[in-house]
């Protein structure tokens, strides 16, 4: 408990706080694997991951490792990203479409952060990037992806 004479450390509010329902996703990210949920009944993958299928209302879901293959749906180039990344300067904020179907917000790294380099529908591959004291999901151009 904080009190007089103690130093209080304010946690970075942007460091994701997992919940019991999303913990397997974050355990996967820490292990550099993209684990998300799909419905056992209708077979649809969905994001954010969770215990309830938003397509058919089933609660019969399972975790699986997604391929990490994706395409770039749309994006902006944010001029003032957070300072907790391992690179500086403008940074893409993107809607990425996973090969398994779901779209999610992420960032495309490993290429110039310019309209010329960030081509819509370009093939992407999941990559795992330090953010503050944790690791988060980003994507990089598939042709330059480290195997």
């Amino acid at each position, binding site marked *: 408990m904080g009190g007089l004479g103690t130093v209080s450390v304010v946690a970075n*509010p942007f460091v994701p706080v997992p919940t019991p329902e999303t913990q397997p996703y974050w355990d996967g990210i820490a292990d550099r694997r993209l684990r998300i949920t799909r419905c056992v009944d209708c077979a649809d993958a969905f994001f954010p991951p969770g215990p309830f299928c938003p397509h058919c209302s089933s609660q019969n879901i399972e975790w699986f490792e997604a391929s990490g293959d994706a395409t770039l749906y749309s994006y902006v180039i944010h001029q003032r990203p957070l300072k907790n990344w391992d690179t500086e300067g403008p940074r893409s904020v993107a809607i990425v479409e996973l090969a398994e179907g779901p779209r999610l*917000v992420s960032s495309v790294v490993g290429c110039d952060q310019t309209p010329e380099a960030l081509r819509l529908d370009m093939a992407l591959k999941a990559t795992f990037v330090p953010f503050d004291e944790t690791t988060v999901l980003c994507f990089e151009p598939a042709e330059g992806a480290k195997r």
Partner: protein
Amino acid sequence: MRPGDFAIVGAAESDEIGTVPDTTSMGLLLNAAGNALEDAGLTAADIDGITTGYFEVSDVSRQLGIFPKWADNTVVGGCSWMFQLRNAIAALNAGYCETVLITYGESGKSTRRLGQSGGGGKGSMGQQFDMLYAAAAPPALFGLPIVRYMREYGLTEEQLASGPVAQREWATMNPRATLQEPTTIQEVLDSPMIAWPLRRAMCCLVSDAGGAIIVTSADRAKDFPKPPVYVLGSGGGLEAGIMSPAGVREPLRPEFIRTSGEAAFSAAGISHDDVDHLMIYDAFAHNPIFGLEGLGFVDYGDAASFISEGNTRPGGRLPMNTNGGGMSYAHTGAYGMLCMLESVRQVRGEAAAQVDDIDVAVCHGWGGFWSACSTLVFAPERPS
């Protein structure tokens, strides 16, 4: 319920908007609520229903000395107060209460929302999966569909800049607008880059303001000092998570906009040609484009040219965002109340940049980064 069975009989902003230092969101709310009561010639004792957002509703009612028998605390982002008006009408229609006060205040600029609650808390969907990538910056999340739209429909950065220019023309006539100097497309394109392709002049202001609206039955509405603003119809819809724009199913043709607009137009019994005045919540320059298309005023892909050809500027055939909008008038963070209040002023005939002969006015607002929207249809006369 028929179109016009309920009406707005009191409406006001806080005394000051823009930069109001040393006043919290609650202070702005209380000031606006008091002004709306005065506008309607009422006191707290006359109110038996209350709504608010980003505060506990009981903290608001107790400070106003209102002891309501109906309350609503719906929070869906910036258009929460539009949803609350719709909910209030349903409650009035059900007989749960007789006179509802809808309250809003937000110190978006000065005291930074001290004492407010809001979305994006630890462990929320947006906090885990969205906010860190964008530094929680609204332009970097809300702006996400634009580049796709540019490729699909050929939208240019010049066209994107034409909306802020048209709205500034309205703001030049409005002494309460934060930005009143005329601007040009070149000036907009020369303003600093925020999140490509959005530049600063394509983004809303950051302001302090409060607002409040009082609604009751049309049968009582003629007994108030100000002309009633009848509510002909309303609509609403939810789509993505509050901070999670990737959840919009068809980003270039969002279904929730169509759902909301069709519900409102159908309930009101109006068509697009009937609309004399339009408000579309402009947090960013692309929002009115998506709104004009989603509501069906133009076909998908045609809204940017509709704006750049001058249809929404003063003298145009569909006056839009006539207070100057969020980009020139004021934008607190949750602009829906201010958006509705301009509709009310226009329908009453007391706006700063008054549009002539308004028979039907439409107001459309957003919540989150396309997590919600609401559409309202207002009129100065009750349909017979």
